[in-house]
Structure formats: C-alpha cells, structure tokens
C-alpha cells in the first residue's frame, strides 16, 4: 500500500454512516460513577492505606548514634553524598551526564547547601550555655583546611570501630582535635530534637521546605535501612513497591525495569540515561498514530475481530449489497 492509499484508507474511517441505537450517556456515566465509588469504598474498608511514621533526626540520632555522628562528620568534610553531589546543591561535581549533555550542571546550583555550615557549624553555634563547645567550634574553624581534613579523616576511621551505649558513643583512638566535643554537642542537640527544628527553620520561622533535614538523613543509613527492609531500594524494584503489602506505583514498571539491567545498573549516570530512554519511549507512545509498523500492528494481530464480532456477525446476516469501494469522506 502506498502512503497515499494508506491516507485514503485512514480517511475513509472518519464518519459512520451506518445504524445507531438509543443510548443514555448520562445514565451510563452515573452508573459508572456509582460502581467506581462503591468499589473504592469496598477496597478502603478491606485494606485501608499505609502510613508509616516518618524518621526524624531525633529518632535517628537516638537509635543509631554512630551512624548519625559518622554522617555528620562526612558533612563537615564534604565527603557525604550531598557534599559531593554537585548541582543543584553545590559545585562539588558536574553531576550526571549523557555524552556531552550535562543538564544537571547547566541548570545550576539553585538550592545551595553548604554541608559543613548548614548541618554542623551553624547548628552548633546556635547552642547557648556551652562555652567548651563553642571553643571547640572556634578551634576547628580557625585551623587550616589540611588540619581540618586530618581530624575528620582520623575521626571517621575511629568511628568505624566506635560503639554505642545508652544513646552515646565512644570512639577509640586519639588525634581527633575538637571533633569529639563538637560531635558530642551535635549528638545531644539532635537527640533533644533541636536539630530537626534548626535545619528546618534556618531561613525563617515559616517553612515548608524540608530539603536540609531530608538531605542530611538521606546521607546516613536511617532511611535506607528502613527502605531495604520494605523492599523499596532501587535494586529491589523499589520504585514500584509500597510499604507493607500494599500495591505501589505499578505504572512505573517500565521506568524501574531499566535500573535492573546493564548498562544502567552499573552506570554512574543511570538516572539521566533512564530518563532519556523513558523520554523517547513516552514520545513514541504519544505519537503512535504516526509511526509506521507500530500503527499497523492492530490490523495484523486482529484482536479487533473479537471486539467487533457482533458487528461482523450483523454484516454477515445482511443481504449482500454491491461492494462499495472505500472512498474518502468529504
């Protein structure tokens, strides 16, 4: 079939000149609404919905103080996930890219986060009545960058062997400078609930932006441990899952599928690559009417014969008329 013939054929389906029968559109819509409402109510009564309480910096610092302090130390020296993230939080890296396309970098640092200042120094400086703590912060800040790094690196090594008891930690070894005092102060502040508030309201009283507390928690293990338990990790098809036994976002199946296979599963640029693939596939999906082969498949695999079997049966029952050539409707 030539393209012109295909176009004519397509045009010939514009109008229906055949039979009609009575139909109550509003009644059908009302019945459908009633059915769906009833179904939704039944599902609600049977299963309800999940609501797992959020983690807080307070709960995190109490249940896993070693992880909290370790994370805080990596925020201080910029080696945390957020510290090395790049845009939109900082310039520490270029972020993800696809060949020469660096969208993450090009869109810039629009939500600046200085992990050392925002997560450690400023909260500590807001604590009053603790001169030894303030003195430790001053000592840290007036040291050279090399000295600061020496302290944090040594402390991180010590933390790997740290133990927790009764919500406080003990880190073996020495050579950590002011860090034990600073981190002890931060831990107490966090365990009292002060750090949650401080991170949220650092800009102004009224806030609805949880970027800082969430980035801080995401840099540690508190959210990931809960997520792994609930099979919500990316490697566990977590995007589609939900907490508990609830169905999740099932429609994300194709999106999460790519993360499970190479090269995406082992690439540092997995996110941008998957987004690119999904952008192309979404465009294909939207443009199906115009895509050769894809738009002919319904003719070749005749599921339509089942759908319209009543209509075809009706045609068979009619007396044969002279065949009318398919013509374009005016």
């Amino acid at each position: 079939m030539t393209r012109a013939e295909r176009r004519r054929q397509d045009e010939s389906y514009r109008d229906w000149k055949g039979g009609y029968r009575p139909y109550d559109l509003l009644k059908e819509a009302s019945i459908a609404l009633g059915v769906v409402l009833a179904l939704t109510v039944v599902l609600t009564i049977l299963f309800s919905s999940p609501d797992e309480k959020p983690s807080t910096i307070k709960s995190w610092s109490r249940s896993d103080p070693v992880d909290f302090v370790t994370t805080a130390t990596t925020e201080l020296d910029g080696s945390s996930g957020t510290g090395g993230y790049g845009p939109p939080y900082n310039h520490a890296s270029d972020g993800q890219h696809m060949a020469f396309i660096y969208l993450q970098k090009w869109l810039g640092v629009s939500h600046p986060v200085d992990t050392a200042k925002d997560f450690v120094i400023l909260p500590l400086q807001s604590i009053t009545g603790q001169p030894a703590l303030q003195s430790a912060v001053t000592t840290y800040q007036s040291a050279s960058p090399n000295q600061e790094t020496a302290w944090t690196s040594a402390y991180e090594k010590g933390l790997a062997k740290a133990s927790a008891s009764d919500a406080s930690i003990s880190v073996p070894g020495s050579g950590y400078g002011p860090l034990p005092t600073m981190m002890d102060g931060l831990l107490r502040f966090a365990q009292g609930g002060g750090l949650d508030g401080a991170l949220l309201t650092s800009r102004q009283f009224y806030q609805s932006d949880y970027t800082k507390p969430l980035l801080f928690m995401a840099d540690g293990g508190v959210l990931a441990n809960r997520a792994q338990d609930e099979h919500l990790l990316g490697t566990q098809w977590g995007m589609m899952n939900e907490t508990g036994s609830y169905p999740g976002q099932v429609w994300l199946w194709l999106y999460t599928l790519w993360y499970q296979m190479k090269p995406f599963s082992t690439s540092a640029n997995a996110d941008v690559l998957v987004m690119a693939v999904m952008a192309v596939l979404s465009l294909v999906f939207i443009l199906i009417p115009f895509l050769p082969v894809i738009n002919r498949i319904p003719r070749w695999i005749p599921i339509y014969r089942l759908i319209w079997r009543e209509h075809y049966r009706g045609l068979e029952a009619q007396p044969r008329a002279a065949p009318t050539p398919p013509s374009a409707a005016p």
Partner: protein
Amino acid sequence: MAAVFNLNHHASYVNFHVGGGSTPFFSFSMSLSNVIVIVVMLIVFALAIALPFPHHEGAGTQQ
C-alpha cells in the same frame, strides 16, 4: 478505623534472576500485591473483550 485485612506487614515477593554473580544481568523482583494488580488487569482486559455485551431492543435501526 482498622481495615478488615491488615496489609501493614512485610510483603511477599516474586523473584527471578538472569545471569549469576554479584551483579546479575537482569533481576526481577516484584511484590505480590503488584503482581496481583497486573494479573487482575490482564484478566479484566481479556474478559472485557471476550464477554458478550447485552443486546438492546431496536438495535441496528438505519439512520
């Protein structure tokens, strides 16, 4: 308001892997609830096409 069936417990999963080692070529792991939703969709689609639609009186009146 408690639900009849409490779904706030660990889900069951349907798993399989293609290729071994620490990073298999492809691994499939879907929660049972999601698998059920997908299977229900396929069954409903098949039924929608296969089940006969009730006839109306006065059908096929020519315009």
